[in-house]
């Protein structure tokens, strides 16, 4: 048992690593858990899950794996059996992973007297059985277990709101952390957090910046001979252009887009931040202000902004075939375009190699032909926290990010 729990966690999307799994196992070996599932739940979570964004996935996995066990004590024999042979049941590991696992395990065995550990474990198990009271007794390591001495604080009850007696499986079943998942919501704070990764700290231009700390330091070390030290400026050099679709099908996502927009504009994080709007598709003009149709020729983007600018386009990429492929295909009756939208999109991609498309609709809906076509021009990501992170990775990677073919 157990090892498959590791895989279940991975399957549910918890990015757990073998290092963490082994630390967790170490804690179990050393007896830092009780026979109840509660311990397994909280300690497992603390060792294996490093962000509240994955708590819900952990809950799901835990429920699936231990859900049937309810409040009855964990079958310690099974844990024991597994601990004696932790490599058992690892068919799904790749050879590299298996090698890493084995290496780590060897290290672990070198550090610990395994026989002694197992002996202690068996002893605790025996005591546990003799006491026969399932969940409420601690498995302690002869008094040194951190759980050995719980009880009530002399100054009063010190047990918090989370009802301890409730079975862990039930706690997991409540899925209280559902709203913390990264793949569901995207609020302004999270957006800011993600956008903070969009940065490049390097010196720009020829002007060098005097490093005062280093200068003083050097000068002092040289016994007072003034020694000027120059350094690269550490300011963020990222210049960002945001192009946002305000078309009708985007209506349901207005708030989502507003969040992205307000996060980016509130941040004062970028060297330069420009934004323009468009309606369904981009043609010879973009808009500075959609409400009063204040136009800027798309050509101006190419002449005013060099190719180092990063471009994020936000839109559902969903439109009529003609809007993307036809001359005069623009949905607005008063507007004519002598080049089809797709040509403009390709020119944008050509001019700005660091460009991505963020799509507020779910990946499942990207089969639509215009979405599909556009996702072959721009790397396309979901407008979720995870999608935004990947998009930013693409924007900051050294190579031009490949699109699907």
């Amino acid at each position, binding site marked *: 048992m157990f090892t498959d729990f590791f895989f279940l966690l991975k399957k549910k999307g918890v990015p757990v690593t073998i290092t963490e799994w082994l*630390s967790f196992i170490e804690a179990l070996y050393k007896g830092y858990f009780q026979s109840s599932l509660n311990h397994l739940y909280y300690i497992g979570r603390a060792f294996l899950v490093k962000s509240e964004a994955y708590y819900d996935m952990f809950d799901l996995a835990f429920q699936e794996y231990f859900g049937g066990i309810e409040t009855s004590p964990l079958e310690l024999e099974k844990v024991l059996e597994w601990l004696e042979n932790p490599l058992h049941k690892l068919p799904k590991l790749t050879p590299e992973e298996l090698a890493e696992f084995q290496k780590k395990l060897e290290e672990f065995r070198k550090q610990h007297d395994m026989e002694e550990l197992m002996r202690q474990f068996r002893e605790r198990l025996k005591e546990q059985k003799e006491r026969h009271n399932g969940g409420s007794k601690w498995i302690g390591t002869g008094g040194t277990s951190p759980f050995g001495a719980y009880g009530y604080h002399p100054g009063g009850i010190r047990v*918090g709101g989370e009802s301890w007696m409730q079975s862990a499986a039930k706690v997991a079943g409540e899925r209280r952390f559902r709203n913390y998942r990264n793949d569901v919501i995207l609020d302004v704070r999270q957006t800011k*957090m993600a956008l903070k990764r969009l940065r490049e700290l390097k010196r720009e231009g020829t002007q060098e910046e005097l490093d005062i700390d280093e200068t003083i330091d050097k000068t002092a070390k040289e016994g007072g001979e003034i020694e000027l030290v120059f350094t690269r400026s550490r300011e963020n050099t990222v210049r960002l252009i945001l192009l946002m679709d305000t078309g009708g099908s985007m209506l349901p996502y207005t708030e989502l887009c507003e969040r992205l927009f307000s996060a980016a504009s509130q941040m004062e994080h970028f060297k330069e931040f420009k934004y323009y709007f468009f309606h369904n598709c981009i043609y010879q003009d973009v808009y500075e202000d959609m409400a009063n149709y204040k136009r800027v020729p798309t050509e101006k983007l190419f002449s005013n902004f060099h190719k180092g600018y990063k471009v994020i386009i936000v839109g559902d990429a969903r439109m009529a075939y003609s809007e993307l492929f036809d001359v005069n295909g623009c949905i607005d009756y008063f507007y004519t375009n002598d080049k089809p939208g797709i040509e403009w999109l390709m020119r944008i991609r050509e001019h700005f190699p660091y460009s991505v498309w963020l799509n507020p609709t779910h990946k499942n809906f990207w089969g639509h032909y215009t979405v599909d076509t556009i996702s072959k021009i721009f790397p396309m990501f979901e407008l979720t926290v995870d999608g935004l992170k990947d998009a930013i990775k693409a924007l900051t990677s050294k190579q031009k990010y490949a699109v699907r073919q």
Partner: protein
Amino acid sequence: MTDTNKVYKGSDYYIASKPLMEIVNVAIALGKPLVIKGEPGTGKTLLAHSIAEALNKKLITWNIKSTTKAKDGLYVYDTVQRLNDARFKDKDISDIRQYIKLGKLGQAFKSEEQVVLLIDEIDKADIEFPNDLLNELDEMSFYIPELDEEVVAKHRPIVVITSNSEKELPDAFLRRCIFYYIEFPDEEMMEKIVRVHYPDIENKLLRETLKRFYWIREVDGLKKKPSTSELLDWIKALMIGGINADKIASEIPFLGTLLKNEQDTARFIRLSSTQQGGFGFKKRF
């Protein structure tokens, strides 16, 4: 051989949930840094104080700012002082040691007894900051080239790291830590927290304030939801103002202690006056 001193069970002025206590104890037992996250005011900073108090250990606090560098925590070589001494004072400057000042991490390592080291608000610093500390926290030692000396921890400090998640922490760093997210306290737990601060509070007042407090937190789209600290301030104001519990059921005196910006106040008043007809907020403000 039971060493009860080693077991953390909360402290007189701090309410820790049972899972949190457990995790604190595992972290101590296995010598792993404990990363604590949670909304503002959920008692992250206070936890480290509580651990130190309960286990009777010294607390060393390293407050992180946006300009903090990992090196600052190890040691600082005060070259300016040395230069100054060399030029303007008749002082022997050959012993560099007098110009090496240990940072918080250095102090924690050098301490004669085990200490609790609080690295507060680690997310304030540069994204790379936690990674720059990996080695030192792993090895519990660092090297001072100027002195050709290795500072090795005499006792592995109990390391508590807090984060408000302004930035995400690097994976490599998190892998070595134990992680706990303090949920915003539910009413039952909050009652206990309030009682710790105001042991004599009248039951009815406590109940009414909590009811109102959680109701306000539910208001959609607040920029800053009131936290525990605001609740405590509010209750204090109510107690000093001698406001009785019935009044809170019909209006919210001292709303300003709970909602601290105008937009939130405006939003709250607008929503509450439509949702709860006759609630009479408008008259009050």
